[in-house]
């Protein structure tokens, strides 16, 4: 039984989303408590990105509810930090790292000058992703790993209580993977609720406190070590879990 914490974090109940004539998501139930890091794993087309977009309030659901800290997504926008996939961002725009991170805070509101609070949040966010030295560099000159860090800093600058990350470990170098893992662990320890999609099972196991197998609906949901049942993987991906995959999940040696 959850009690006081019902209002904190992310709560999705019975979420059904249709794009055109097809149901992309069907009665999805998922909760992410403050301090939890949940990895969303599923095949291509399983609805992972659609689920994130529903939490962001970008698409209308057919039924079900999404609550962020007890509020509808539209009312919780200032508390959500969204890290999109790298190709969503216009890297050829003439702006520095510091400018891009500051704009994530100041470009999305209408009133008020850019104040000390904005600059502090920007500097802290840039420092947390380890880009302070490069803060004056144009975003067009950055490597893949540095670009991912900029996107994370843009989300952090909003001081979110819920972080949504879309494939944060795809196409980034090892130092950035390590930095992100450590950063997400730190954020969770501070009470941030974190939900990320990923294809990288090893990373999910290293970073996430829970893994959610998604294929239109939630197939399984639990700590990484508990998702060893080959049947779950068969249902989520339509293939039996390979030996390698089960080793990654810590499933031991037995054959199915």
């Amino acid at each position: 039984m959850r009690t006081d914490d019902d209002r904190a974090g992310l709560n999705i109940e019975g979420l059904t989303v249709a794009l055109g004539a097809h149901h992309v998501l069907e009665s999805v139930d998922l909760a992410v408590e403050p301090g939890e890091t949940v990895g969303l794993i599923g095949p291509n087309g399983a609805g992972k990105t659609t689920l994130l977009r529903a939490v962001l309030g970008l698409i209308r659901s057919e039924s079900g509810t999404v609550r962020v800290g007890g509020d509808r997504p539209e009312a919780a926008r200032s508390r959500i930090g969204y890290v999109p996939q790298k190709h969503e961002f216009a890297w050829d725009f003439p702006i520095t790292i510091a400018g891009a991170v500051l704009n994530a805070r100041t470009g999305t509101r209408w009133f008020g000058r850019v104040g000390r609070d904005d600059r502090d949040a920007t500097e802290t966010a840039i420092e947390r992703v380890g880009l302070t030295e490069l803060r004056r560099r144009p975003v067009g000159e950055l490597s893949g790993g540095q670009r991912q860090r900029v996107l994370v800093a843009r989300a952090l600058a909003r001081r979110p209580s819920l972080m949504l990350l879309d494939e944060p470990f795809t196409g980034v170098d090892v130092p950035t993977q390590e930095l992100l893992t450590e950063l997400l662990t730190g954020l969770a320890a501070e009470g941030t609720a974190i939900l990320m999609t990923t294809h990288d099972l090893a990373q999910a196991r290293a970073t996430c406190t829970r893994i959610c197998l998604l294929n239109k609906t939630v197939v399984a949901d639990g700590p990484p070590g508990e998702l060893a049942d080959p049947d779950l993987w068969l249902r989520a991906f339509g293939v039996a879990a390979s030996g390698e995959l089960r080793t990654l999940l810590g499933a031991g040696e037995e054959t199915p």
Partner: protein
Amino acid sequence: MIEWLTEPWTHVFMQRAFAVAVISAVVCVVVGSFVVLRGMAFIGDAVAHAVFPGVAIGFVLHINMSLSGAAAGIATALAIVLISQTRRLKEDTVIGIFWAASFGLGIVIVSTQAAYTGDLTSFLFGQILALDDGDVITVALIGAALVTAIALLRRQLTAVSLDREAARAAGLPVLALDIALYVMVTVAIVISLQAVGNVLVLALLITPAATARMLTDRLGAMTLLGAAIAAAGAIAGLYLSFHYNLAAGGLIVLVLTAVFLIAWLLAPRHGVLRRVKRRTTAASNRTSNAPG
């Protein structure tokens, strides 16, 4: 030499021409920076051509041709925005359809008239040397309003340009900001028609901003530099026009294009020569590092 420089300023019609050309050029750069960065040059082209039937209708009905032109341009811009929301068709396809349709409409309307008159051709090719004080004041006031609007919306327009989805998720009215930008593009084009005319106005909107983009990696610097280039190009074009008795609008555009080509070749970081040099340096480094 001094006389060459001062003589144009002794004529009132040239003073007005300098004022309108410089204001138009600067306003077009301020709006055009976002057009270039969003890759929307085609929108400018479509709107510029859509203004033509509006002007023609104004001419036929004897109403203010700037107003009817602006109305047609804004209507086309809105149609493009709304139809390209469907995402089934790419924006440039929708623009291509409206671009041709509006010019066709303009030609049909003009063909109902027995003869062209100077009024209509001046909208096609500019009438920079035949302005009155009212024209100068109108262009100055509308230009100031546009620059103010861009300054006020700068952060939001940047946010949408950087990441449309994130901006939408953060609650920005992305569609309304698109429409606002398109309307500002239309108004900038309409006030610039007198300087360079319908056919060449795209050059004011795109060329100086693109030149500045070659030279800097900051939006603020890009806008200021582009404005300086545009103003200088407008003045240089008018001098050449005055002394050699050639078409002013065309010369302004040719000067701006020449500056662009020079920047494209010589830009310190992104220029062609710089890149070639870097490549040859890298190649010779490889050769010298190769084990002998």
